[in-house]
């Protein structure tokens, strides 16, 4: 008997092979991300300018509405910087969500014509949003320089919170992209989710204004932990982190990510047939 076949295709497929394939197809992953970035900056006339203008405008509007008009506290930090420090992870999350939820459908042609681990499609979308994130980060430094605001060593912990933001974005993206293939009306849910999320997450204000007894519940929103973490890392002690809440947020994020991964893997088999 010749048992030296490299590949066995059976109903059910092998999970071990999948992770190996994921590594094998890393180059395709980079190419797809590269394509999306390239296309984005080629298509839009203002290109990079757009990813600069949007967070800046939002920052100005929020500073006026929440800071100047509503007079919410900012603990001595310039209100625009407080808003911007939260805008940074929020924009990343929101962009990832909207991009990745449509990513499989936008690449339907690819899914039905070639094999690759489908995971790299939503992952690519998150990576593209990450590029925007870094552009925004540079702007943050610009804004901080403008206000002559100096960050301290805590800034070095930012990558940890970025990883948390990444897991939250990717986890939610996995759920939404897979659901979107099966239930196509999910595409109407996502913009609403993003819009709504902006108001219930502490972007325009500090999470400290949430009453004590609702605190833990509030932290069930994964972005609350991430945003608070960002504020703390960038702005320091003016925004102390509520550690139990953060831990809860992180656990919930991890759970969402793992659940998303499992759900995606499960649905992945039928993508090419259903899409």
């Amino acid at each position: 008997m010749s048992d030296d076949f490299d590949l066995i295709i059976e109903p059910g497929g092998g999970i071990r092979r999948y992770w190996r394939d994921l590594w094998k197809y890393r180059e395709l992953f980079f190419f797809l991300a590269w394509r999306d970035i390239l296309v984005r900056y080629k298509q839009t006339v203002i290109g990079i300018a757009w990813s600069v203008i949007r967070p800046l405008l939002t920052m100005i509007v929020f500073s006026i509405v929440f800071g100047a008009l509503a007079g919410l506290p900012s603990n001595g930090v310039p209100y625009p910087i407080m808003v911007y420090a939260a805008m940074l992870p929020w924009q990343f999350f929101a962009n990832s969500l909207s991009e990745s939820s449509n990513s499989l459908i936008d690449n339907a042609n690819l899914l039905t014509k070639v094999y690759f681990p489908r995971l790299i499609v939503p992952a690519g979308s998150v990576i593209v949003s990450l590029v925007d994130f870094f552009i925004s980060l540079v702007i943050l430094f610009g804004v901080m320089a403008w206000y002559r605001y100096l960050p301290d060593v805590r800034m070095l912990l930012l990558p940890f919170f970025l990883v948390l933001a990444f897991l939250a974005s990717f986890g939610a993206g996995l759920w939404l992209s897979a659901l979107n293939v099966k239930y196509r009306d999910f595409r109407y849910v996502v913009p609403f989710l993003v819009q709504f999320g902006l108001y219930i997450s502490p972007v325009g204000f500090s999470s400290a204004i949430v009453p004590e007894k609702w605190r833990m519940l509030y932290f069930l929103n994964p972005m609350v932990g991430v945003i608070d973490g960002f504020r703390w890392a960038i702005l320091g002690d003016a925004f102390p982190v509520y550690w139990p809440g953060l831990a809860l947020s992180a656990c919930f994020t991890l759970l969402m990510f793992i659940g998303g991964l499992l759900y995606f893997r499960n649905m992945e088999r039928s993508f090419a047939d259903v899409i």
Partner: protein
Amino acid sequence: MSSVIRVENLGKKYNLRHQQREQYTAMRDVITDGFKSFARKLIHPFQFSTESGPSSEDFWALKDVTFDVKQGDRIGIIGRNGAGKSTLLKILSRITEPTTGRVRIKGRVASLLEVGTGFHPELTGRENIFLNGAILGMGRAEIRNKFDEIVDFAEIEKFLDTPVKRYSSGMYVRLAFAVAAHLEPEILIVDEVLAVGDSQFQKKCLGKMEDVSTREGRTVLFVSHNFSAINTLCTRSILLSNGTISSYGNSIDITNEYICGLSSKQIGQNGKFDLTNRVNLYNKGVPIILSVTVCDHNGYPSDTLVMGKSAKIQFELQEIENINNLDFGIGFYTPEGFRITSATTWSSETVTRTNSNNSLKVTYQFDMIPFTAGKIMMSPSVSNSKHGIVYDHPEMSCYFNVVEETLFTEKKKISRTYGVIYIDGQWQLH
């Protein structure tokens, strides 16, 4: 030689939805359906849910497909639309999972189910070469090594840095194909991609594929509706029908079988013409010729005959007295009604006939079909030529189609534009 692909009892089941306009489910429907059945349960708590009629139906696109491919084989896959060819290739290239069975593969597989998969119109030719190469499974270094060769093959040097949305469709296909042609897998899976592009470029691609596969012993699975391409490239072929393999063998035989089967099925006549329901212009209106059957060179009833091959035309007659004095004939016409020639018993030396209880059969045997490809109409006749009496003569009542055998070899091409009759002779230059 060892097997590189072994397919066992492969099956693929699809769910065909009848009610919904689209394949996907709408969450909205799931929710409303849920509410409906919930409401129904509230109203009739003890009634078992009578599942609503089949809104979806299982459909086996492939069933019990088993075959083996040896290293270096070039296999053609043919079959009618919806026979399951693309489904088979999709399973082999892991795009979709089988429902039953198993496939074992040895070696690196590249599949080409479409030219230019993943091409992005906004990107330049150069960028698309890299992108498409990566999508087809080439590494970055590999693409870089072959880059010049690809550009040469596509003949688009001047437009390398133009977005492909500005390309003519021909240029687009060339570029896409050039990338694909430089794939170097051990097993290449190709679906109907040759249908695009101009014929010269198609030849070039086919040549390249053949060249590489013979020189390097590459295994190729090739789906096409173009039989000359199948016969040029593939040594063996699989004929799929309704998701099962109906035959597997020598390409020429399989394509032949397919053409005959296909045309008879499509016309529904199968080379049999029932002539009972008509008014005979002679013999007081009673038909004497009951039916005419056309049989191809294999002896099977078929209305498709191969140019240069033998064929038989058989009539079935109503019994009449004075059988010894009857004459039979067939007039052959172009569809426009021009009489090409006739075959008659009074001009022929041998007459074959078989008596069966109530009817009588007359067969005319062609040694070689002398007509070029196209439709030939026939007027069978029964008469007594000595006395000039006609008993039955249904004009242009049956026909057959001639196909060129050269369709398969591509060596010579004689079509109707050259004439109706095919003559065989030699040219000599002095």
